[in-house]
């Protein structure tokens, strides 16, 4: 099941709920190499829509930490996206590579608390 509701209207992505409880990578996730995963993330274009750290932006939602999809849901989504994301088949990115990408995203440090960033203080 998708945890986040994602939809697009008039060309922009409505980003997912941020303060859902953080999900740890499911234990069923195959072991992956985070460093190789980072290189792949750039090489095969995930960063193009999701940002270099999977932080999300105008062209794709956040897929990095807090929360992360369980590996099964993660790989299922990229094989057969239900929205605008282009599909990544097993031929062009085998499960082992997906595991590396997943490991990369899971390895990223958590984002700093919003209260700790003065520039993000609400104006009023």
């Amino acid at each position, binding site marked *: 099941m998708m945890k986040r509701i994602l*939809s*697009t*209207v*008039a*060309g*922009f*992505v*409505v*980003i997912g*709920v*941020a*303060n859902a409880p953080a999900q740890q990578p499911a234990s069923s996730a195959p072991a992956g190499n985070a460093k190789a995963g980072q290189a792949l993330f750039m*090489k*095969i*274009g995930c*960063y*193009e*829509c999701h*940002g*270099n*750290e*999977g*932080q*999300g*932006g*105008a*062209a*794709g939602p*956040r897929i*990095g930490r807090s929360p992360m999809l369980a590996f099964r849901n993660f790989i299922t989504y990229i094989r057969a996206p239900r*929205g*605008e994301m*282009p*599909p*990544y*088949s097993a*031929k*062009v*990115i085998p499960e082992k590579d997906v595991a590396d990408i997943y490991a990369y995203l899971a390895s990223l440090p958590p*984002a*700093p*608390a*919003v209260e700790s*960033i003065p*520039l*993000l203080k*609400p*104006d*009023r």
Partner: protein
Amino acid sequence: MAAKSKMERRKFLKGGMLAGAAAIAQPKAVMAQQSPSASEEAEVLITDSCGSDYMVDVIKSLGFEYVCANPGSSFRGMQESIINYGGNRNPEFITNCHEESSVAMAHGYFKIEGKPMAVLAHGTVGLQHASMAIYNAWCDRVPVYIMAGNYVDAAIRRPAEWYHGVQDCAGIVRDFTKWDDQPASLIHFGESAVRAYKIAMTPPMAPVLVVLDAGLQEGPNESRTKLSIPKLTVPAPPQGEAGAVNELARLLVAAENPVLVADRLARTTAAMPLLIELAETLQAAVIDQGGRMNFPSHHPLNQTQRAAAAVGEADLVVGLEVADFWATVNALRDQVHRSTRKLTKPGAKLATITSGDLYIKANYQDFRRLAEVDLAIAADGEVTLPALIEAVKRLATGDRQRLFQQRGAKLAEASRTTRERMRQAATYAWDANPVSTARVAAELWAVIKNEDWSLVSNYYSEAGIWPRRLWDFNKPYQWPGHAGGGGIGYGAPSSVGAALANKKYGRFSVSLQTDGDLMYAPGVLWTAAHHRIPLLSVMLNNRGYHQEIMHVQRMCNERNRGVDRGTMGSTLTDPHIDFAKIAQGMGLHAEGPITDPKDLGPALRRAAAAVKRGEPALVDIVTQAR
């Protein structure tokens, strides 16, 4: 040849005589100097009677502050009249390095000033350069007043004037201009010049073109009396038919969850308060699609950042000057098999008010897919709002008002949590290198928020872009809207044009300038420096045509034969472009490339100080892709 020069000489003599005693005296004095034995037949080399002076009188009467141009010989008469006869004031001549820059500057200027800027161009090569920018203005329903020089009379053409001469000058842009003419006399010019202005300014507004025959510009003003200047009366825009407006008010008051969607609604500064009044009276959700600055970004009823949810909940969606209403209530999925789905729930009613229903052309397809609506009011949205507000107020009984208040409270809570989510989302990749686009927006906001700022760039324009998520937009001049036709290269010149309009109000103009856009015609930076146009250009330099990278990636994935070459052909690397050097070379304060987010704040503050001194400045930031 001999016959021709005789004919021309006679024409000039006649012109000199008609211009009066002073005019005759002067040419004679000069003839005497040049040729002591000058006979009566001697050539007249000087005249003070020229058609383009009258053209300037007419242009001045229309109230143009500026005329943008890349100089061209086919309007040399007009240029001389503007600078000498007109004193280079109202209009003042602005030098551009490309006609696309001239038109896009005029486009950006209009978005801030609400009145057109004049543009001069060669009728052939200049208009061809200008055509992309004219198309953007057309798609964006923005009036640009273009005057094109042409040598109509083949008998007087110099060699270059043959390839700078054209039979139907306007033909190349007629599909995306509203009206054009090639006046054959000065009286004809006066009427057409005023008519063109009137047509351009009547909603739906659009660019117009008046061809200035070079013979008419340079030849004498043959009128025996001073030519009069036709009076300009811009027509009142069409208001919605009363019955239909009442029906829309009835639907709005009866709806449980009405959503007001505004796109190119705010034609003038009057629109934003009207939309606020309508929304607050109904406590209805508002989605600002950003074609103009329609609604304050932090207003509790603003649901732009949760637009999909708001449209999904709606039982009535009202499009106010929405360019693409179909895509507001439907989605088209860009996969191998393109499919569509409705975004609204079953039974939701749809209504539109747009001047787009009043005028349409066939060739270029910017009219979008046909939306099946329940009520369509062919009228200008802005001027229809007061009657709609009155009708809504008449129908809103006590019961309905209680419901409105409950609805408003829910919407306020939804927009508050959405804003919270946006702040939270900005924390991800906060310290990343290259810099995240959220970080750029937050750093820049800190530098400008206490200024009387105006974000003059279109920067893709989608609501999902960071400034519109984080910044408090609440004044009509804080956001100019889109390019219209999606023609890249619009951003830099339109920002300079908008900044020029802001200059006299002392506003702090800032643009988010993308790399691919600036590379089209970077010469406009020089124009900004030369004319002392204060503008802070903050580069979002992702070193590529990233939108296209994503398109090609999609093709790679769909075709399943390699997904690691999606960037090929669309990057701007090897060598990296040094935008700070480019800008410095054109006389700007410029810094960069900056990749470490820590360096951002200080660089922005130094550049802002230069802007406050009245100069343009540029900070090149290497950012993430989106």
